[in-house]
């Protein structure tokens, strides 16, 4: 299938949407689809062979943040030419509500067009003002995909209709090889946590309480905490004697995040609710970590009811402490669980996610819808 993908944000800036598009494009190419991506990029920039530059990106404030986007006559003309010459079976626009290449492509093309919505927003002034304009662009979409429940909800609340949900994938191979962080390493006594520290539903307080219970009887037990938040809040929750055994890294880079997964014996996911799909859990599994997670439905499913990782009673520090202790004392069980986890996470690998995206393509092109053409 010949697929044209439109990226709204500058190709040279790391970001979630750009990463998603690159992963998707590579997964589609691996499945022998013919993919062309158009993205904002300067003419002298080095791009992968499947990416076409649409001109330099300009930083613009939009909907509460500053993003690097392309628009204007030159970009519009380039998008139009790319659509006309592409001969695509399907056009896949990302973030069509962002004033960048997505809107331009929606305007310049007709035929089978699908769009993926990434961002969630609360009823926004910017979008409300432009609503009639955006509405006519949305009318052209034959299929709509949301990457999360939050993104789906934002779209449906403001514009009505419905979307299908296809979550982000994890590129398993990216996580499998990494060195532990300096001075760390699985030593049979290290627990780990990753996520927002100050967000209650991520469950860090439950883990801290469990740690306080375990620490006195296990003198070499350590805890590594990574993610945005205030280290002081974490230490304040712990009894004085054990504070120096909890290391708070704060925000970490993508590379250090992967190294952190490789630095622990048991990765804990004490989330109390939400998490329609635990991306953090999937990343830890892809890294080969042994996982101990709360028994909320989403996690039970990802972990195959305990086959691919241990579970504890949601919200119960004593249960978490008990399970963690049992895991730390059983290296063979840890290895077995990690091995199973690597198999189970395959379901969330990009190759699987891309298959669902292809099903969307097949649905909108099923009935002789013709090709994508220039809309004059």
């Amino acid at each position, binding site marked *: 299938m010949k697929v044209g993908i439109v990226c709204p944000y500058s190709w040279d800036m790391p970001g979630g949407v750009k990463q998603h598009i690159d992963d998707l494009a590579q997964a589609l190419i691996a499945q022998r689809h013919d993919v062309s991506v158009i993205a904002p990029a300067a003419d002298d920039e080095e791009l992968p062979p499947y990416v076409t530059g649409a001109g330099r990106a300009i930083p613009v404030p939009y909907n509460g943040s500053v993003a690097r986007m392309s628009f204007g006559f030159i970009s519009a003309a380039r998008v139009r030419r790319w659509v006309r010459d592409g001969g695509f079976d399907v056009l896949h626009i990302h973030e069509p509500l962002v004033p960048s290449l997505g809107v331009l492509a929606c305007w310049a093309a*007709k035929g089978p067009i699908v769009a993926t919505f990434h961002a969630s927003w609360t009823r926004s002034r910017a979008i409300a003002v432009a609503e009639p304009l955006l509405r*006519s662009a*949305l*009318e*052209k979409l*034959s*299929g*709509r995909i949301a990457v999360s429940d939050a993104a789906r909800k934002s779209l449906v609340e403001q514009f*009505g*209709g*419905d*979307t*299908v*949900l296809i*979550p982000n994938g994890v590129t398993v191979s990216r996580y499998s090889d990494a060195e532990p962080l300096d001075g760390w390493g699985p030593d049979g006594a290290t627990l780990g946590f990753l996520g927002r520290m100050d967000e209650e539903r991520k469950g860090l307080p439950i883990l801290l309480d469990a740690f306080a219970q375990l620490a006195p009887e296990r003198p070499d037990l350590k805890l590594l905490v990574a993610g945005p938040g205030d280290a002081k809040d974490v230490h304040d929750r712990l009894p004085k004697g054990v504070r120096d055994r909890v290391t708070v890294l704060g925000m970490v880079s993508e590379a250090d995040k992967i190294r952190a997964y490789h630095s622990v014996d048991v990765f804990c996911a004490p989330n109390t609710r939400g998490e*329609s*799909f635990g991306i953090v859990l999937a990343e830890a599994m892809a890294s080969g970590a042994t996982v101990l997670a709360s028994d909320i439905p989403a996690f039970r499913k990802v972990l195959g009811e305990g086959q691919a990782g241990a579970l504890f009673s949601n919200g119960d520090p004593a249960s978490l402490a008990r399970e963690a202790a049992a895991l730390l004392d059983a290296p063979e069980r840890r290895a077995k669980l990690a091995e199973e986890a690597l198999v189970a996470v395959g*379901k*969330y690998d990009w190759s*699987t996610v891309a298959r*669902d995206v292809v*099903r*969307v393509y*097949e*649905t*909108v092109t*099923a*009935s*002789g*819808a013709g090709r994508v053409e220039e809309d004059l």
Partner: protein
Amino acid sequence: MSPLIIALIAGIVVVLTAVYISWRAGRLDRLHIRLELAQEALDAALMRRRAVVLELAGSRLLDPATSLVLAAAAHEARMSGPEEREHAESDLSGALRAAVDQERFREKLAESPGGQELLEELDGAVTKVVYSRRFYNNAVGVTRTAQRRWLARVLRLAGHTEYPQFFEIDDNPPVSMATE
């Protein structure tokens, strides 16, 4: 104001109105095309699902009782008239869940020769029913809104096309299949 200028202004107003109306009519026309394509895609997806279920039921890979449940549901869905269609397709979703969510159903089927391929076909067919129905109902929603606008009603821009109906069924996939 001279009669010439009045005539000129009137002429411009007429032309602009005509352009606007034809733009609206074109937009509505495009929505009707999209709706028709979405309808065809939905019909194709439902047909495909019935066919895969019948194939699974007739494959001799399942126990006879499960085969019978699936075959009966798929057959009902195929024979149903327009009135019972939503019911029959929902029942087929229910029968599929009952069959596929049996303990170790997928593992057992995957071990049989040809079973893995059938499972993949089934996954694809079930997912595409979910996708095509969402897309169809979306198309119904926007087309309805466009048809209801006063200009479209007064000038009968929709012509003789019917007021489109949503397709409401239970299409929840088996638990062991859903990645959502």
